[in-house]
């Protein structure tokens, strides 16, 4: 079986690039919104720009659509620089966040707007509009005005209005943001199926990580104007490359630590609250690291696990519907979340437990910060760690 990690997110198939961004910058005055973004999108791909509000994802989308100019860098559509092309001259269409349906036109006129502009023959317009209405399941609604439609219906009209032009790329700016949870889930799968059926490239902007994980072929995680990581949903979830990605996508336990060699391709990590083991590949000795463990990979046991000496106290159980989360407080006060499967052992609140994980399940994030010793020197809060280090040194 092909492992998910074999699919390289950073190197998409190079021959069918529809959209290529090279070192794209966007400044508003002194404010750098987008910083040197490079991105390739292949034909038929569902790519999501994911990030918190203000990270530059919508600005990036608007630059591709042509609503914003590029401060520096180039955007190629089908290999052609679109710097001087207005939005109406680009072979892309946008689904706007607030739908932006023309309030004075009925559903049919809204959908046919682009075709009329392209002077498509009347018979052809009629055919394609009814095709689209069928596709988005709005048959019989042609004469309704936008004010007479529900949120989900408006959304479908907005999608139909864009898709009817058969763009090579469809840009979607948080299209499901205004819908309630249930409708959003339904529209997510509808959109995904639509995209797969039509084979149109989708560039989708959202701040909802779950939405991104569900729908995308690849996700570009953006933060503060840069792309922190591009990869398949599986990649960005299982092997986040930065602390931000680990934190933003799904739930993570992130622990700061410091590496010490322990042989066997493994590496001991010393934390404030104990010692643990991770895969040693690519880690230098004496390196300061963030270790990221997903709640579902965190194991809680009564007996100590060899190599691990992280002790904690069960603080509370949080019921979240599909599972129960156990919150464990470590000796330094940090709290870790562990997802408990229904058949796992139940610990009492206040019980002292050992925390561990399979070394290959821990994701090691390198940081550019100073060596831990410097941090310790400057941080009086880590007195406990110093004493811990002294103990450890005594044993060695």
């Amino acid at each position: 079986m092909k492992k998910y990690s074999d699919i390289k997110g950073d190197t998409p198939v190079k021959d069918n690039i529809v959209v290529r961004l090279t070192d794209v910058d966007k400044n508003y005055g002194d404010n750098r919104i987008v910083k040197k973004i490079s991105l390739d999108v292949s034909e038929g791909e569902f790519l999501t720009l994911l990030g918190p509000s203000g990270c530059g994802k919508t600005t990036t989308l608007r630059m591709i659509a042509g609503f914003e100019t590029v401060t520096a860098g180039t955007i190629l559509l089908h290999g052609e620089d679109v710097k001087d092309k207005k939005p109406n001259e680009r072979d892309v269409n946008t689904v706007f966040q607030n739908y932006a349906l023309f309030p004075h036109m009925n559903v049919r006129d809204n959908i046919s707007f682009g075709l009329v502009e392209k002077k498509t023959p009347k018979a052809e317009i009629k055919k394609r509009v009814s095709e689209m209405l069928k596709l988005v399941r709005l048959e019989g609604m042609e004469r309704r005005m936008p004010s007479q439609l529900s949120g989900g219906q408006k959304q479908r009209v907005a999608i139909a209005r864009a898709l009817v032009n058969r763009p090579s790329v469809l840009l979607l700016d948080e299209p499901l943001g205004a819908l309630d949870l249930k409708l959003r889930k339904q529209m997510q799968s509808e959109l995904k199926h639509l995209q797969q059926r039509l084979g149109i490239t989708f560039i989708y902007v959202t701040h909802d990580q779950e939405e991104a994980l569900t729908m995308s072929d690849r996700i570009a995680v953006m933060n503060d104007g840069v792309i922190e990581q591009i990869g398949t949903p599986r990649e960005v979830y299982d092997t986040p490359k930065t602390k931000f990605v680990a934190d933003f996508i799904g739930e993570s336990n992130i622990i700061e630590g410091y590496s010490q060699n322990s042989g066997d391709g493994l590496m001991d990590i010393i934390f404030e609250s104990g010692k643990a083991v991770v895969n040693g590949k690519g880690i230098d000795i004496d390196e300061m690291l963030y270790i990221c463990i997903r709640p579902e990979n965190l194991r809680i046991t009564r007996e100590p696990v060899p190599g691990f000496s992280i002790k904690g106290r069960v603080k509370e159980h949080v019921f979240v519907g599909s599972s129960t989360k156990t919150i464990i407080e470590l000796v330094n006060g940090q709290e870790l979340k562990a997802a408990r499967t229904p058949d796992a052992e139940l610990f009492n609140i206040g019980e002292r437990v050992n925390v561990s994980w399979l070394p290959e399940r821990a994701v090691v994030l390198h940081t550019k910060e100073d060596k831990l010793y410097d941090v310790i020197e400057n941080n009086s809060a880590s007195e406990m760690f110093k004493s811990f280090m002294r103990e450890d040194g005594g044993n060695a």
Partner: protein
Amino acid sequence: MRKKLSNKLVQTVMIGPTVLWLLAFLLAPLIIVVGISFLTKNAHGGVNMPITLEAYKSMANLDYLMIFARSMWLAAETTILCLVFGYPLAAIIARSSKNVKPILVLMVMLPFWINSMIRLYGWMTMLRTEGIINTILLGIGIIDEPLAMLYTDGAVVLGMVYELLPFAVLPLYTSIEKIDPSLLEAACDLGAARRRSFMRVTLPLTMPGIFAGSIQTFIPALGLFYVSDMLGGGSSMYLGNLIKNQFLSARNWPLGAALSLLLIVITIVLMRLYTRVGKLDDIV
């Protein structure tokens, strides 16, 4: 019970003065005008019994019909010019930045704070034979003889447009500003260049504003007698001048009253139309 009573009292105190004011200074004069229109004029310039329809009958006179038609035409001309000049102005104000916008709106409103007669005197000094415009043009040598600008129909139209432009700009501004910018982006995204997007999106969506602006310029344009008096020099007679003359110079009060009522009826019809379309606005 007590509460209800005190509520009533508060209501009476609050609304009472306004109602009295309207009764004394709007309804009463109106009734007097209606009354006068049915009386007979007397030799001393006042009115006498008997009650007659003479005033209304005399309105069906070719001269008066001509004046009526000319007034309608002037009002229409004024309205169209106000829209033509007002729309781009309103669009510029609506699209300007947050800091500039209030200043521009203020500049549109500013003339309201100065007596319109005074402003028209300003125009008179400019348009006169030896006024600024003629002096400059003669000085540069573009013209050899001063242009006759004052006391022409053109000067009247100019004055009317000048007086009524804000009434067109403000509703236009409101309706243009209300348009969601993403609609224009959507139109552009769907292949509509600027002009097409204006024709298919902006114009239809600002129709209520255009209509409101038209009514708000057309109605006062019908009755503004002093503009044609001052800038037209009485060269052409309009409905407003005619009414004024019947009361002040010709001393035919019944006819003046009947003509006034005609003007009021036209206004009411137009206002009805306006509120109808106003309701349409809510739907769109």
